[in-house]
């Protein structure tokens, strides 16, 4: 494609967008509505992911040592564990501290005095640590379990699994919603482009008569689709960014324990995603409408 052709295609596309008026509006707002809904879902999913990651990273792993492990062995173990790359904040909890933690209620304090004095505290030493990244968790657990002084290892397993399940469900849900929204808006875009193609059929017939290739005929439509998508995404983003605090508040009310967060980097990524989706929608709507150009104008 030469430069002059590109200029021609772009000016054709702009002229056509202007002339199509209402049709352009319908296409752009269809894309915008679809992207707005998609964006809301993406925002929710991204937040959920973010939240889960943090949750996992803050999850404490506790290694219960074999009862009766000598305190100097414990110190050595602590050093060893601190050396692991995947952990941070390693602390040792003595049996006494564990007992105190166990009976925080003042009413239970006397239990400490009665049964669990020096020497007959059945609680083991424990080493607590944080995982730097949720991905390292399985490896770390295996490593700890393999140590002879470690009797058992505990972490927020149940909650963890549940959240992971929830997160997967949310992902599947939003992928489904995005596909459905994508398909239905594609259908609307396809039909409006079909209409504009019909309005321009004379032009297409003439182009074909003078020897235009199908791609030559398609290019202005593709550029139009691109612009439709970009405008739709821009509109959706403006609405989304203005509406985001409101949407967030709604979501927060829905899922109370959630901390919602709208980091700038987050929103930037979302904007890029929406623009790409808009462009894909706009262009594929155009391409779909222009599939059967070979049969076009046969009725001439």
């Amino acid at each position, binding site marked *: 494609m030469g430069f*002059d052709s590109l*200029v021609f295609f772009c000016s054709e596309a702009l002229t056509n967008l202007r002339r199509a008026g209402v049709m352009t509006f319908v296409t752009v707002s269809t894309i915008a509505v679809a992207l707005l809904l998609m964006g809301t879902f993406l925002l929710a999913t991204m937040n959920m992911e973010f939240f889960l990651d943090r949750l996992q990273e803050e999850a404490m792993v506790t290694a219960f040592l074999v009862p009766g492990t000598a305190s100097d062995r414990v110190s050595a173990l602590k050093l060893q564990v601190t050396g692991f790359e995947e952990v941070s904040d390693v602390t040792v909890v003595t049996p006494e501290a564990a007992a105190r933690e166990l009976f925080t209620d003042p009413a239970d304090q006397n239990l400490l005095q009665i049964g669990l004095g020096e020497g007959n505290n059945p609680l083991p030493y424990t080493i607590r640590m944080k995982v730097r990244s949720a991905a390292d968790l399985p490896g770390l657990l295996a490593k700890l379990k393999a140590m002879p002084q470690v009797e058992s290892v505990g972490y927020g397993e149940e909650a963890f699994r549940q959240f992971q399940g929830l997160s997967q469900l949310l992902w599947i849900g939003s992928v489904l919603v995005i596909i459905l929204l994508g398909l239905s808006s594609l259908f609307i875009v396809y039909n409006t482009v079909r209409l504009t193609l019909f309005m321009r059929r004379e*032009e297409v017939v*003439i182009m074909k*008569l*003078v*020897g*235009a290739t199908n791609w*030559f005929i398609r290019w202005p439509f593709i550029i139009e689709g691109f612009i439709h998508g970009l405008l739709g995404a821009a509109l959706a983003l403006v609405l989304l960014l203005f509406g985001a605090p409101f949407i967030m508040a709604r979501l927060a009310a829905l899922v109370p324990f959630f901390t919602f967060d709208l980091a700038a980097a987050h929103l930037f990524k979302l904007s890029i995603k929406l623009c790409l989706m808009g462009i894909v929608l706009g262009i594929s709507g155009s391409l779909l409408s222009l599939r059967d150009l070979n049969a076009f104008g046969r009725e*001439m």
Partner: protein
Amino acid sequence: MIELQNVSKIYPNGVRALNDVSLSIPAGDFVFLVGPSGAGKSTFLRILFREEIPTEGKVMVDGKDIVGMPDGRVPYLRRNLGIVLQDFQLLKRRTVAENVAFGLRVIGAPENVINARVQETLETVGLSHKRRMFPDELSGGEQQRVCVARAVVNNPLILITDEPTGNLDPMISLEIMQLFLDINARGTTVIMATHNHHLVNKLRKRVIALVEGRLIKDEPGGTYAYE
């Protein structure tokens, strides 16, 4: 330039528009295609520019078999053809110059070539002073001249025209006809379907007559009569 061997065309509705037509048209020829309404003239022409595909037979245009030609090659075939139809197929929202330029735009010609060729061609058809006007501001004859300009702007090998004077009065028809003769004089093969017996009888060019899809006459320097 054009070769037809035993060409038949049966439309999907069962109408047999062409029936075993064989003929040959050398480069530089001027051919009138005549016959009653429904004889198959338009069908014949549409086969030449590959708007229709024959049901049977072989068609060669400029040495290429256009029956088996893949759809993707058709645009390149048409760039060697100039096509002028009865209803002036002009884009109403574009100026005369833009309409003519279309024939070059499509082949990706650079802007300066387009401008020069459009000017030259509009001078040939005598409309360069109206280059900035829109089709609606022109008379029927002028509109048809714009169509001719668009058809010849990229120097086609063959000019195919279907009743180009059908909607025009005799004087204007003669002007358009003169244009075709000029184009033919410069080496372009011209094939023209027409009902205008005055023109045919006056000019004494090669006449091919179709009746009910059959070739019934092929006569150099012939007349309009087909019975």
